[in-house]
């Protein structure tokens, strides 16, 4: 098999996941796109491992071992990531990453009300954390 087929497919899948990470607004859809990028890397690792194990007679199978480790780490990552998203959704009532702007340096150009609104929101967040 020509090596360009799996390499090109994994490059395309990686860029699809990149678009999803940059363009999606829901945090869980961003996690799905991260999974796509991880899978693209896995395909690359497997293809090059098969090529090297035949061409260079490399018997370490480092590509497949790394693929298994990547899959396990992706499973751990999705568990932790979903727990964080659920905690944020519980405290803020939204999983929309465009609205999580507490550390943003830019002030909203709405006028003086925006500061009061922000203070109120942060007060609510603190109250939610205190009750939690």
């Amino acid at each position, binding site marked *: *098999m020509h090596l360009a087929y799996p390499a090109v497919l994994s490059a395309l899948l990686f860029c699809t996941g990149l678009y999803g990470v940059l363009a999606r607004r829901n945090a869980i859809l961003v996690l799905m796109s991260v999974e796509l990028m991880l899978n693209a890397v896995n395909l690359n690792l497997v293809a090059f491992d098969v090529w090297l194990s035949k061409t260079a007679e490399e018997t370490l199978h480092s590509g497949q071992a790394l693929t298994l480790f990547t*899959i396990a780490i992706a499973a751990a990552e999705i*568990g932790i990531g979903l727990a964080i998203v659920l905690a944020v959704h519980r405290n803020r009532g939204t999983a929309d990453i465009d609205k999580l702007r507490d550390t943003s340096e830019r002030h909203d150009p709405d006028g003086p009300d925006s500061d009061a609104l922000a203070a109120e929101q942060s007060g609510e967040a603190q109250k939610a954390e205190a009750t939690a």
Partner: protein
Amino acid sequence: MTLAATVGILATGPIPITTAAADTHGFLSPTGVEIAFLLVGLVTFGAAIVTVTTRQLVHAALWLVVTLGGLAVEYLLLTAEFIAWVQVLIYVGSVVVLLLFGLMLTRAPIGRSPDADSGNRWAALTVAVASAAALVWVVVDAFRTTWIDLDGPAAGSTEATGASLFQNWVLPFEALSVLLLAALVGAIVLSRKAKAGAATTAESTSAARSEKDPRTEKGSRSEKEGTR
């Protein structure tokens, strides 16, 4: 080092080698495996595109199943059968189930949601298309005359993978089990912080998490009993 050696051989090797390779392999006469890889790859790529562009959140998770299943078939075509079945078990079996749990626990709307894409999607599209063009160009240019030899014994059979994993990669494997335990504990701690309304959340999260890894199932169950 082996990659460098191979590249060096390819670079310093006389031209007749590459022409001989081109004679035996040929660009315009793809083998059956290549045709199957291309067709499944088209399905996989199309499903990935739908996954990142659809406005229905649950449909995105279901198209992700098609993408991951297609990738499992690609692993089978590359003779990596153990990786393929691990992909089916872990990704299709548990990661997608976890994602669906997350979608439902965050009360994702059924049907089209108008704010699935953020405002900077055109910038994202530009970045993605530019990086895809650059990557495909570089990869095709680099590996134009490289073929994978799929004949002979399978490179990724369960026997070969297990032997190399438990001869050469034992220490990373054990470290990974510690990492899985840490992730399990972290997920439970993050989930059980809230009170009444979130008790069901914590329970279902740990239940979904216990499906993920049979090794951690026992710890998760006992932890669940503890929360009760």
